[in-house]
């Protein structure tokens, strides 16, 4: 309506304000109404953000508070350094699981990082465009496969294969878990690495070629170092995914509380031990608190990783 009335005339800012005021209803001027809407919207947004933070901190607080109760009966030293996890005899040494978690993550990274970086280099530097457009969506789809599928394939395909090739009795252990996790994190790491390699300016490559470098020299000496922070970011994101993964791991790791000192020895990590036992644990028991403490440790580890990711991201790929 108003537009129809005023069309064809040019207003200055002041006139427009006056005309807005004049055309508004009796109770609220249009200006006041708009500012009311804006403010309400802003408050809702802030409230949502505060709500999310609140949830995060209450989870942290609850896990930490329940977890700390462990130390009423178990000494801190025993919990972190003892390898005896026999809850039925009141022995709560979580070192086996903490060690297992780090060993598994490390082993996963040792296998997956070189592979992912090679995939990313291939994708971004050596592939014709039509193949790129086909491969990238495939990798993206792989990220979305539920982990239980990977776990089941690990259990029914990978483990019998490992048993046949190595001649071991079981095949369960950190190697099997690391392979399953590698397949899981491969698309994540390689896609983000791919993006960060693509982001390296063309002039770097041109300069390198102009100096007479081969393609291999350009990639290894110029492109990869330039994309270093992006690759670090990808690796840490992949590690964060691997460390928290439960369903796939629990199916292939063997779930036995013993130190992971061999590739084919059934063992246990923080996540798998929690999911194996939490359902069968009495509510108000040290055992329950110890599992909460282990969950809390996991939370802290992933929080530290997220902080590192933010720091790397802050520096940015230039």
């Amino acid at each position, binding site marked *: 309506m108003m537009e129809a009335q005023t069309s064809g005339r040019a207003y200055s800012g002041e006139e427009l304000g006056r005309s807005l005021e004049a055309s508004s209803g009796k109770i609220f001027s249009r200006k006041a109404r708009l500012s009311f809407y804006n403010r309400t919207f802003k408050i809702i947004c802030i409230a949502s953000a505060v709500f999310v933070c609140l949830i995060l901190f209450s989870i942290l607080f609850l896990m930490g508070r329940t977890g700390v109760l462990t130390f009423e009966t178990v000494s801190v030293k025993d919990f972190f350094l003892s390898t005896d996890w026999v809850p039925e005899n009141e022995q709560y040494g979580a070192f086996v699981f903490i060690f297992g978690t780090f060993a598994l993550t490390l082993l996963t990274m040792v296998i997956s990082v070189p592979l992912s970086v090679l995939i990313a280099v291939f994708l971004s530097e050596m592939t014709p465009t039509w193949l790129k457009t086909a491969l990238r969506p495939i990798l993206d789809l792989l990220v979305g496969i539920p982990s239980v599928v990977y776990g089941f394939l690990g*259990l029914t395909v990978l*483990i019998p294969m490992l048993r046949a090739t190595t001649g071991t009795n079981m095949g369960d252990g950190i190697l099997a878990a690391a392979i399953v996790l590698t397949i899981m994190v491969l698309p994540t790491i390689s896609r983000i690495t791919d993006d960060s390699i693509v982001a390296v300016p063309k002039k770097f490559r041109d300069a390198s070629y102009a100096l007479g470098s081969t393609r291999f020299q350009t990639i290894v000496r110029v492109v990869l170092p330039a994309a270093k922070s992006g690759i670090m970011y990808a690796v840490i994101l992949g590690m964060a995914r691997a460390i928290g993964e439960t369903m796939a791991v629990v199916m292939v790791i063997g779930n*036995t509380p013993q130190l992971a000192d061999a590739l084919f020895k059934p063992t246990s990590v923080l996540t798998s031990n929690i999911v194996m*036992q939490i359902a*069968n644990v009495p*509510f108000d028991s040290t055992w329950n608190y110890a599992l909460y403490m282990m969950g809390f440790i996991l939370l802290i580890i992933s929080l530290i990783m997220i902080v590192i990711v933010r720091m790397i991201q802050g520096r940015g790929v230039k």
Partner: protein
Amino acid sequence: MKTKWIRNIGLAVMALSLTFGSVSAVSASSKLSGRIVVNGSSALLPLTLQAANEFKKLNPKVRISASAAGSVTGPQSVRKGIADIGACDWDASTDVPGFKKFDGQVANKVAVIPFAAVANSNVGVSSLSTAQLQGIFSGKITNWKEVGGSDADIVVVNRAFGSGTRVNFQVKALNGTDFMTKGSNYKEVKSSGDMKTAIETTPNAIGYIDLVYVTAKMKAMKINNVAPSEANVINGSYKVWAYGYYMTKGQPSGVVKAFIDYVQSTKFQTGSLKKLKFIPLSAMKNA
């Protein structure tokens, strides 16, 4: 022609309203209403769900919610007041290995659950004595040749601590001997389904499982030369079975009692319960 058609519809409507009318008349006659929460054993869950469905049809005003997270959570939730019925694979009002008794709770028998020691189909041994089973599961016997099989390491698959199946197998088949807890040919699995997969796919593996889960791809061991079968459980020669219990806080009353009575009724015991491959309580009277 047209009038006949309309008359047919009219008849159908009348018939329908009659049926529904009678159904609502039935439901109006039963005065039971309320809410029952069942938690606990996953082995008993299919039974509970089936019973709940049938019971709700008879008593539409009763709401039953059932979930399972493991045997010990049954009596736990009853103690905490979260659940009215705690399904448990052992009598939680008495002490069992690893678990103290739950004071003030009453165990209501609802079914008989047989268990079997099972091995991968490549295992040549088909019968084990109690002493041999004890040796295998405690880690003292580590090679199949020690019990009359071929020269191969025994892979022991166990359920995680707190599993009702584990408690029952330990009490009934191993006479309470402790399980081994670690070793390079030892692993633990989370559920009966995982146990089934592990035994089916791991050569030289031995484990144990509810009889209803035993498939053609695995070998159910004779224990002391008695085959695990429903008939042998009923005639008393096969000892590795246990009652499944509904734990309640004190004697059950009201709608909870009505539900437990329904599960224990001959109609349910010999009908749906048997179809789910549990053994009716009445069959064990002469054991």
